[in-house]
């Protein structure tokens, strides 16, 4: 571990100044003629779980990618754990992690080898113990020495989650974490995320199309449409505003442009 890394693992002045885990300010991303993200602002309190909802092309993945520093904004600012992204990413990358369907783990490496490599990249102390702990928590024991490419979709998702948790991140970004999982495994993953947030006071930002998942996990929901924030509140408050009993109904109202009618009906 370098001096820089040691320094970055301690709370910094920026951490103390900014209480928010994520602060997004007038963020814009334009790809050629398309405004994928159109002037959005929000901040997430530390220890919160926030759902990012929206149809395909709403701008969720681009937003998350900008928060991670994988995509550069056209304009606007992103602060993560008090540090500007991507300029100051070296100070925070070791304290966050992510899981996304847009990336895979190396297929020929075994689960243990993959976790060992990522654990070393994140400078995890007592790595063998940490891997054993994750194997127990996420039930990886039966296939931990099997190549990642030979696992079922559900097993791969658990391995990806293990990689995302290897460094016990303060901030976890999840893009469709339970996609392609059977209901039992998906429920089990959600329970694990809830437990992790509670035990570590971690902040989780979750992009999902599964409304039940968002209702169950999130204490706040941000709904995006065509790159803009359409609504932003607690799930119960949003459902009440739209006079709906489920987030799925709200989602359909937003997706089909029935927003004003639904809100007026609620008034």
């Amino acid at each position, binding site marked *: 571990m370098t001096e820089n890394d040691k320094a970055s693992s301690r709370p910094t002045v920026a951490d103390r100044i900014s209480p928010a885990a994520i602060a997004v300010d007038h963020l814009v991303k334009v790809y050629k003629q398309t405004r994928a993200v159109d002037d959005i602002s929000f901040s997430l309190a530390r220890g919160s779980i926030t759902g990012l909802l929206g149809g395909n092309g709403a701008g969720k993945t681009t937003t998350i990618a900008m928060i*991670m520093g994988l995509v550069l904004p056209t304009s606007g600012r992103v602060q993560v754990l008090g540090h500007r992204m991507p300029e100051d990413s070296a100070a925070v990358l070791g304290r966050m992690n992510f899981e996304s369907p847009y990336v895979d*783990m190396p297929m020929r490496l075994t689960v243990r*080898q993959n976790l*060992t*490599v990522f654990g070393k990249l994140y400078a995890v102390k007592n790595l063998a113990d940490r891997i054993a702990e994750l194997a127990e928590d996420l039930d990886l024991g039966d296939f931990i020495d099997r190549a990642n490419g030979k696992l079922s979709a559900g097993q791969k998702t658990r391995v990806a989650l293990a990689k995302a948790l290897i460094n016990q991140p303060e901030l976890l970004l999840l893009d469709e974490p339970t996609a392609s999982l059977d209901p039992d495994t998906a429920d089990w993953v959600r329970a694990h995320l809830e437990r992790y947030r509670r035990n570590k006071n971690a902040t989780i930002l979750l992009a999902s199309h599964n409304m039940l998942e968002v209702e169950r996990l999130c204490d706040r929901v941000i709904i995006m449409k065509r790159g803009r924030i359409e609504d932003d509140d607690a799930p119960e408050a949003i459902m009440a505003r739209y006079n709906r009993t489920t987030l799925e109904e709200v989602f359909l109202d937003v997706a089909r442009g029935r927003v004003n009618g639904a809100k007026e009906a609620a008034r």
Partner: protein
Amino acid sequence: MTELSLHRGISVHRIGAMILRYWYLLMSSWPRLLELLYWPALQVITWGFLQLYIAENANFFARAGGTLIGAVILWDILFRGQLGFSISFLEEMWARNIGNLMMSPVKPIEFLLSLMVMSLIRLAIGIIPMTLLALVLFHFNVYALGLPLIAFFCNLIFTSWSVGIFVSGLVLRNGLGAESIVWTLMFAILPLACVYYPVSVLPAWLQYVAWALPPTYAFEGMRALLIEHAFRTDLMLEALAINAVLLVASFGAFLALLRSARRHGSLLSSGE
């Protein structure tokens, strides 16, 4: 420049982790290992017999024993050095793992350093058996070149890394649609670097281009050593200076292409 700020505090642990990742991959796949041995062995056998044939029929080659087979070995250091670098990089693209790495604390310079070490490891696996074959079958002992061999090797491997860094940046920016450049770019250097013939064969105007390429100095130096038994230190120093410029330029190009990839969202869609 923000990208440059990401290179302070290089971690040997992270470089080691990346090397471990490629080592696991190499050891998990016998076709990958076989491929490292197969082509260099085929090359040396083919060109070795050609050298024998020519030496029997031409006085010059009888005197200049080993220039062809020596050129083949040095060319393979150049070509396999670049492939060793680039294939490790491509493994990340094929595995769709590049996003995981870019989101991890590993810095671009650490990533590139690990690819350099892997190119040396892959090169050793392929080239050492090749040189032993040349010794056994054709009685050509490349190690008898002595210290000059180290100078040739260093200059060739530095050039191979420069090319590897540059083409990796191109693939990062343009996706796997640019993969063919990885396999073919070095062949554009082949005729200009005068691998099998002296620079004097080229038209005068093309000689300027040839002397701009560091490998030309290594191949000319090898011929001077085998034919005239003279080690041209001046050639090696000039090559080293050009290589230093190329390495800095390729690293700058890689950072610019990485930044462009971030601007265009290419790191999320690393397919074709």
